[in-house]
């Protein structure tokens, strides 16, 4: 079943928590706790030395995982046969894809049971080769859009993305959160006008209230840095599971109230 289908079938506001693969010895415990807490999909970061398009927390988490000796193939080996019933979406930088070659990389993902792939530093213009390899392997290549993406390009993204469209906004400096939520919401609506894929929104969401607000105009949210901050500060799978559960409840409650 396609990633898009699996997401649509949930019939609720979507929640995609993120974890950096290899961040601790028992990092796969986080995947299990996410699933148990009601994640609809999980973003699995394959750490890269220079995550230019992520913030400082993800940079720190990537550095920590690499320092532990984490590698993309090692991480994939660890999830192989984990038997999660939640789809996994890998995210990484293009240099790691190139390292193996697009086809080999996608095949390795597929082999490990990964459903989708996010490559934030892959420009639309150069996505052709990877998109083909992914399609051929049965991996959904998820494309990203941001508030500054011009409309014709947004249309192209909506058309060529698979699984969902990842709407990101990193104007995430303190004190601007209200304006952010507004521009992210507007972005989600713009994407929905030009295509019909689910739209997940990620812009530094950390509280249940923010998740609820973000989900109002989109199909769901991604929570990454807030989770990794907790993990870097020592939170184990249970602690993080509790946090994800709270996000889940807030999203569900909001949906109930609206009905």
């Amino acid at each position, binding site marked *: 079943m396609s990633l898009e289908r699996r997401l649509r079938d949930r019939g609720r506001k979507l929640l995609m928590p993120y974890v950096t693969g290899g961040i601790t010895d028992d990092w796969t415990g986080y995947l299990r706790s996410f699933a148990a807490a009601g994640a609809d999909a999980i973003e699995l970061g394959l750490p*890269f*030395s*220079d*995550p*230019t*398009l*992520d*913030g*400082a927390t993800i*940079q*720190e988490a990537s*550095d920590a995982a*690499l320092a532990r000796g984490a*590698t*993309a*193939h090692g991480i994939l080996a660890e999830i192989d046969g984990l038997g999660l019933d939640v789809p996994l979406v890998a995210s990484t*930088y*293009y*240099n*790691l894809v*190139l*390292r*193996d070659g697009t086809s080999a990389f996608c095949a390795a993902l597929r082999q490990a049971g990964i459903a989708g792939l996010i490559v934030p*530093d892959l*420009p639309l213009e150069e996505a052709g080769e990877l998109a083909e390899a992914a399609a051929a392997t049965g991996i959904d290549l998820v494309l990203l859009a*941001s508030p*500054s993406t011009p409309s014709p390009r947004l249309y192209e993204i909506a058309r060529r993305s698979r699984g969902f469209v990842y709407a990101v906004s*990193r*104007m*995430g*400096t303190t004190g601007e959160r209200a304006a952010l939520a507004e521009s992210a919401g507007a972005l989600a609506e713009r994407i929905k006008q030009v295509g019909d894929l689910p739209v997940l929104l990620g812009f530094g969401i950390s509280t249940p209230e923010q998740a609820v607000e973000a989900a109002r105009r989109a199909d769901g949210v991604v929570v990454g840095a807030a989770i990794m901050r907790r993990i870097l500060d020592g939170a184990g799978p249970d602690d993080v599971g509790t946090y994800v559960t709270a996000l889940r409840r807030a999203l569900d409650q909001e949906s109930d109230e609206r009905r």
Partner: protein
Amino acid sequence: REVEGAFREARSDPGFRERLETLLALHVGRPTPLTPAPRLSAELGVTLLLKREDLTHTGSHKINNVLGQALLATRMGRTRLIAETGAGMHGVAVATGAALLGLRATVFMGERDVERQALNVFRMRMLGAEVVTVGAGSRTLKDATSEAMRHWVSATEEAYYCVGSVVGPTPYPWMVREFQRVIGDEARGQCAGALASAVPDYVVACVGGGSNAAGTFAGFVDTAARLVGVEAEGGAGASRGRLGVLHGFRSLFLQDEHGQITEAHSIAAGLDYPGVGPEHAYLRDLGRARYVTVSDEEVVGAAVRLARTEGIVPALESAHAIAWVIRAAVAGELPPGATVLITLSGRGDKDMSTLKELV
């Protein structure tokens, strides 16, 4: 993309070109001289000519490119420049260009470089720029670049990202080379006056990202001159890198077996970058240019030697080019009497505290 269109337009606008030329002449001090180096030439048995980018305003070739991009930013209606810097020379150039044109400037710099180049940090602040210290990763140029890109993404409407070398996404490598080709074009004309052969046998420049080399080579790529790019042993993107993608461009990068970018190490902060501009990867593949490396030790020796023979203290970056020429001349790799153009990309004042500990 928007930048590319604006640059194409500006390039064909005589008004833009004239404004830039005036700035380069009146503020930067162009043309820079082509200086003979009689004493070192005699010692090495070859004829050296030095293209003196160290004499430009702010002390390095970086200003050529920055004024071009700053003018472009003004043309695009931007009010602020964002940039990363390694040794601080690009940052000083950006701060200078911003002050000159009445723009704001935010410069990102790795924490280690902030320490190594404290005076350049203060120079930028004197010029009114905001300097942001980056504590992530190796705390050098690579991380400053990542952080600057992150910041710029959040301010694309008011801010223009001023790339300092022939790196980054299209159109930067091409645009920066075009702004730096004034080095090669001037040198080509000056060599025609200074050399019986009109064109030197060798054209040598240091390579970090590779902007001074790209600008120099641009003037000689259509001649018979052999082009040599000299890299730091610990930052040899062109000599030892593998194809990869970073910071929005595909080129040669130092990386481990897993595709993780490794840290560059050089005594010259400006060469502390694990990659090289895509044009250098191309020139290498074509066999049109050759890329070699020299050790930190050779570099320090070359800086001292140029200082004592010609009264010029080069930037440690530029000393890489000198170091290779010395080695090649001594090894007989340069035929006796060969004519060699070396671009001195900047002056050594910024490196005094580093040199002080070593000499």
